[in-house]
């Protein structure tokens, strides 16, 4: 039963809004066993996997209205609506799901029409099995004995969940950033199961600069005195390392211009100057981002998920050639980039759309102008929704 707790109406709306997915409750599914383990791309074996997922809307009798939404690095299955059990995850008290502006009754991904599914990825810390979960062999958290996972593993596991839900074919897979790469991977791994792919702020792989940022983030965690080889679950977690990783990553999510507009060089007036506290507003913003992240995220999960992001390269499906890889795709594709995104810059996204065009696929590529950098796919819900809505509603060009 959903325990409805009091949650004040605020700038994010409220669960009572007619366009809100309302109160939500996560579901769990147990898959695989000692006899039939989940085998990862790298050969790791997981004797049991639990997947946390949420759904919104109703599956149609013909089961053809399912839309899979993919979350990014630090995301979870709570894509829309208000968590009815926010007491267990207090940071959800005042905020709806991470894509609430896009998903809901009458919104771009219209839950009156579509059955929306969002699953937490393998290795994360939001209900799906990950390094913090207990290894049945020892009864203790896996920590770094958890197998390395890949985007391919995630998508394969998601497909298994859909099998269990009786969903053979997806109307669409949509995601931003690392979620966009999962959408690409869906089109490559299961071309016969997906009709539309929406890729936002994501390219077929991460650039050397992106790899470098992830490396520094992991360096911060791995060298935190509390890290202790990942076996920190019985003591203090490597919070300062994780916070530093998050602060660094957050810089890559914003644009230079956006940061200037939001903070400029403004100094806080409420603290003493002349030392090394968070004196500049941008400093204070980042340290807040770092602090609040450590309350809700597991450092080991951060290592595993950024590694999966590093490894992902869609062109591997074509022997290193992205055009060859794209030939596998059968879906109509929408690619959206943001002109100030320097993590997955427009040129990388445009090249992906050109590779699709090269294979005579039906492709739409749009470069939106936004001051929000990489984060724009989460922030610019109105404009992103304006592109997603017709893309999801139109008849397929290539069928």
């Amino acid at each position, binding site marked *: 039963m959903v325990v409805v707790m009091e949650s004040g109406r605020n700038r994010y709306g409220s669960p009572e809004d007619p366009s809100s997915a309302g109160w939500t409750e996560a579901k769990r599914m147990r898959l695989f066993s000692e006899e039939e383990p989940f085998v990862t791309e790298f050969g790791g074996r997981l004797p049991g996997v639990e997947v946390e997922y949420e759904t919104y809307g109703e599956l149609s009798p013909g089961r053809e209205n399912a839309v899979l939404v993919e979350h990014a690095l630090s995301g979870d299955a709570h894509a829309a609506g208000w968590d009815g059990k926010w007491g267990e995850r207090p940071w959800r008290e005042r905020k709806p799901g991470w894509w609430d502006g896009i998903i809901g009754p009458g919104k771009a991904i219209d839950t009156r029409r579509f059955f929306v599914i969002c699953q937490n990825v393998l290795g994360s810390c939001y209900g799906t099995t990950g390094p913090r979960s207990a290894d049945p062999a020892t009864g203790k958290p896996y920590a770094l004995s958890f197998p390395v996972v890949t985007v391919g593993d995630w998508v394969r596991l998601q497909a298994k969940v859909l099998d269990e839900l009786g969903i053979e074919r997806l109307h669409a897979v949509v995601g931003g950033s690392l979620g966009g790469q999962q959408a690409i991977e869906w089109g490559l791994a299961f071309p016969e199961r997906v009709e539309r792919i929406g890729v936002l702020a994501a390219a077929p792989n991460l650039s050397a600069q992106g790899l470098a940022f992830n490396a520094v983030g992991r360096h911060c965690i791995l060298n935190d005195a509390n890290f202790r080889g990942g076996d920190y679950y019985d003591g203090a977690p490597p919070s300062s390392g994780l916070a530093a990783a998050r602060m660094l990553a957050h810089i890559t999510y914003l644009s230079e211009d956006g940061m200037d507009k939001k903070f400029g060089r403004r100094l806080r007036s409420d603290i003493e100057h002349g030392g090394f506290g968070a004196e500049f507003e941008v400093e204070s913003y980042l340290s807040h981002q770092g602090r609040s992240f450590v309350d809700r995220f597991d450092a080991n999960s951060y290592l595993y998920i950024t590694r999966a992001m590093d490894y992902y390269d869609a062109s591997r499906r074509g022997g290193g050639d992205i055009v060859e890889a794209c030939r596998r795709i059968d879906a109509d594709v929408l690619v959206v980039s943001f002109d100030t995104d320097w993590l997955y810059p427009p040129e990388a996204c445009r090249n992906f759309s050109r590779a699709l065009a*090269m294979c005579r696929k039906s492709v739409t590529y749009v470069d939106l102008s936004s001051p929000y950098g990489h984060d724009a796919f989460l922030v610019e819900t109105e404009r992103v929704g304006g592109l997603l809505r017709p893309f999801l*509603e139109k008849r397929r060009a290539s069928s």
Partner: protein
Amino acid sequence: MTPGRVSAALKLADFASHFFGVPAEEILRFVEERRDNGRARSAPHQAYCWQDDVLEQEIPRGASVLDLGCGTGELLARLIERRGVRGQGVELSSGAVAECVARGVPVIQSDLDEGLKGFPDGSFDFVVLEETLQTLRRPLGILREMLRVGKRGAVSFPNFAFWKVWVDFAVGGRMPVTGSLPYQWHDSPNIHLFTYGDFADWAESSEVSLSKVFVRSGEEVRPFEEGDDFRGEEMLVFVEKKQLRE
């Protein structure tokens, strides 16, 4: 206009009538209209797109069509709906691209001056370039690309040799403003204006044949006739590479 200019205009109308094969009264009417209305945009840009009507007739059912500078995607939406074509657009303007998406027309937001990188040789039956060529920095580059990517091309453009352009320029001494060239010198996107003759010269020197030419003159749309190099306001030309003799 001074009386001297008016009498000069009469002489010009007489001369132009012989030269262009247009009735002198029509030329005088145009000159007077310009005198009365000044350089206001008296002839508004055609709201309907005659080229689209011709293309809908000429492009076979089920063909694949690449529309370069597809604008808001009207032509492609129409061809997809009525002719069952496989359509793909390329457009630079963000606003227009958003409208394509709203119509469900596949479109790649990209600058045509960067070429058609990404589209393989011969991947479309038709490549359409409507009213765009004269706005490009490297028009010949896109023509070459067009015939690389497409088996046939369809190019439409305002004909700068159209008699009204000529007369407007001669009488007014200002950059010509007409229905198909509705801009002032400073706000015009048309940076490479050319005539039907220029286009034909390019085709001749590039081993390209003009398989069909349609002309709009006023309200009338017709296949190219003798003298239309001056009477045609806008042209729609179907081009293909000449078959090389063995």
